[in-house]
């Protein structure tokens, strides 16, 4: 059984920090279908539309009937572990530093045999229950890999070092929440503490404003440290990074600016600029201030820097014209996050984007339900980190809008525009 994770000791300040290495990242384009599925936390393989054969490794044409109609579909992720090996040697720097490493062959119920990372709680073939479930997860290179897990959860299974290489579990990690006075920010802080975070740096961008819930939260748990941060102020961001940048293992950017208002009808671009200042330039300021330090610490022991979370909106993909300037800023933030993802991938720091539907907070007062409780968004963030996701869609509205976009982007454009166009 997996040993529960021990609280990491204080870092030896005169020991050289281990630099980040990455597992092998090159993949064929078809194999990036696995990466897409892993990024969202679904288990999908190619299935032949003509003969239903499940394909693995990913192919261009069906290995059974040569059809080119290979669709990515959810398939049964269960199977039997039929062979294992424990590597005690590797030619790859990343694995050399993490030996021994267990891999195995799983015969899937769905058909193919797959090579997978094997969880330490899986029994050896011939020595116990060989049934396993497979999960597609991103490794530190940001590419999908298969993990064979015990069929049923085992105690502390998420603490297994091999599995932790594919996840960004907050347990014993230090989390920076960039706006701690928002409902979502406070929810994230609470959820992180529940998930075992060792410290939550809770940012206060308006020290002049008394928010009793914030004060109560800060007083409620000694793991919370209130710090000042205004993401529109480069100096403030730099100051905080200089102070605690070396201790941030997970950064959750909850700083947000949302106001109603379209584009044509407004007399000025001040609101748009305010939104851009927070939602886009704030993200960039944080990236410039915290990105290098997190990259440097991406392999720094148990509590290494692992993840950067952007709380965006499903409207990053489709503008809501009633909030035209805000929509533009969120779309720009999504774009910036993609660059950030590319830039942090070299160190293995994951950028997780969160796309909620409407959240039940002051600026969504007139939005009809269903609306997400801020705590639900926070829980989705923690779960996404625990599972190691890259894209998290939160709530029914987000999922529905996503489905509608897949069906007909143009229709969504018209539909979302109806409320201001008529």
């Amino acid at each position, binding site marked *: 059984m997996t040993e529960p994770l021990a609280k990491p000791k204080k870092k030896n300040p005169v020991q050289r920090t281990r630099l980040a290495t990455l*597992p*092998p*990242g*090159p*993949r*064929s384009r*078809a*194999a990036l279908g696995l990466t897409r599925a892993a990024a969202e936390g679904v288990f999908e393989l190619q299935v032949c539309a003509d003969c239903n054969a499940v394909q*693995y*490794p*990913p192919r261009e044409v069906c*290995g059974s009937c040569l059809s080119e109609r290979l669709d990515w579909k959810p398939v049964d992720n269960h199977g039997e572990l*039929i*062979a*294992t*090996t*424990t*590597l*005690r*040697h*590797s*030619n*790859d720097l*990343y*694995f050399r530093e993490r030996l021994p*490493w267990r*891999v*195995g*062959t799983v*015969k899937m119920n769905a058909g193919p*045999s*797959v*090579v*997978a*990372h094997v969880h330490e709680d899986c029994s050896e*073939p*011939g020595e116990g229950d060989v049934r396993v479930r497979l999960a597609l997860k991103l*490794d530190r*290179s940001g*590419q999908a*890999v*298969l993990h064979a897990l015990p069929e049923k959860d085992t105690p502390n299974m998420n603490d297994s070092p091999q599995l932790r290489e594919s996840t960004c579990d907050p347990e014993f990690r230090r989390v920076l929440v960039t706006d701690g006075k928002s409902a979502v920010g406070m929810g994230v802080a609470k959820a992180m503490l529940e998930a075992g975070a060792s410290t939550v740096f809770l940012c206060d961008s308006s020290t002049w404003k008394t928010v009793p819930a914030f004060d109560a939260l800060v007083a409620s748990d000694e793991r919370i440290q209130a710090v000042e941060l205004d993401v529109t102020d480069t100096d403030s961001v730099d100051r905080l990074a200089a102070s605690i940048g070396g201790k941030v293992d997970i950064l959750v950017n909850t700083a947000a600016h949302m106001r109603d208002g379209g584009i044509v009808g407004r007399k000025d671009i001040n609101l748009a600029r305010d939104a851009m200042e927070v939602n886009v330039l704030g993200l960039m300021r944080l990236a410039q201030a915290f990105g290098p330090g997190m990259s440097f610490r991406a392999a720094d022991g148990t509590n290494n820097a692992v993840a950067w979370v952007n709380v965006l909106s499903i409207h990053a993909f489709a503008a809501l014209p009633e909030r035209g300037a805000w929509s533009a800023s969120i779309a720009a933030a999504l774009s910036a996050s993609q660059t950030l993802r590319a830039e942090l991938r070299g160190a293995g720091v994951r950028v997780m984007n969160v796309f909620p539907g409407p959240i039940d907070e002051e600026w969504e007062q007139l939005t009809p339900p269903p609306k997400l409780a801020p705590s639900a968004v926070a829980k989705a963030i923690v779960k996404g980190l625990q599972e190691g996701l890259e894209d998290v869609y939160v709530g029914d509205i987000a999922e529905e809008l996503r489905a509608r976009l897949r069906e007909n982007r143009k229709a969504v454009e018209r539909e979302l525009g109806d409320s201001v166009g008529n």
Partner: protein
Amino acid sequence: MSLTLPPRPRLGYDGVVAAVPVTIPYVRYSTHSAHWWLGRALAELIRGAGLAKSDVDGVCVSSFTLGPDTAVGLMQHLGMSPRWLDHIPMGGASGVVALRRAARAVQAGDAEIVACIAGDTNHVDSFRNTVSQFSRFAQDAVYPYGAGGPNASFALLTDHYMHQYGATREDFGKLCVAQRDNALKNPHALMKKPLTLAQYLEARPITDPIHLFDCVMPCAGAEGYLVMTEERARALKLPMVRIRSTIERHNAFPEDPIQFRGGWAMDRDALYEHAGVAPADVDFVETYDDYPVINMLQFEDLGFCAKGEGPTFVREHRFTIDGSFPFNTSGGQLSVGQAGAAGGYLGLVQALRQLTGRAGDTQVQGARIGLVSGFGMINYDRGLCSGAAVLERGDVR
């Protein structure tokens, strides 16, 4: 719907022979490129046969490290103008497959003399580069899992085989020890020290259950032989080897969840029937031995024992040159070294030596019929190419 026509009889290899086995002595690391090794092999073939360079009108090449060149670029590099050229990227099956291709070309008159050469260099980082870019499936679905390379893949097959059929490390060790014994008689072998079973068992683990002496040592080297008509071989006064039969198969048994058999199991009956010999008639066997478990698969799949009886077969025989089952008489790759694609020629070239009486201290006395088998290309989770050839001394008819 498939067309139902009566099976066609296969032609024999009458009138075609192999000759002039050459080995360019292996080294652990080389600063030369693959072109050097292949060029040296070709030069040795020409010198050994007493030919002019222009007499060689067919060339068959195998190499992992020739890139970005192919056989075509190599021809300009070597100043050759062959009228028949082939490039066989089949790793451990390359030797047998090259023989098949060349023999048919000569038999059909498309070429008169085909030089079959395989060679690779080995720089300090060659092996890592080869493994990390070996194939698309390996890149997508194996290498990211620990980057163990072939060690890890064969560890899985070995693990499964041991569970399934009760093979023990001692069984594998017996084969490795016997091959080392043979290698000590082969001046080309890189391994020069004796190996005991105790040393084998105590070796450090590499990837369970594979330990150090289950692994081949990557090195640089080249191998080659000529294929020509029997008539020309006689004219050149070259000792020759006849080809009784050959087989090849690729991606056999794709439905097997893990590899416990190779393509030989599909084709061995056809092989022996075509060759007109039975397993019992074979005087020595040269298998592709990248890992000892693959030897056991070949004993079974080539009909020396039933599936699953490999361990018992190993316990019942001695595999040294003078043993009850002379086997991998050069020492095999496990003790000679694995010179890339040349490793796929090792068994065939050694068999040609045995059957032309040039095997020196490794000579199996009275060897008349030899069986060579090849196995190559662990593209994803299993070796895909298999081949075998039944060869016969050329001076016995």
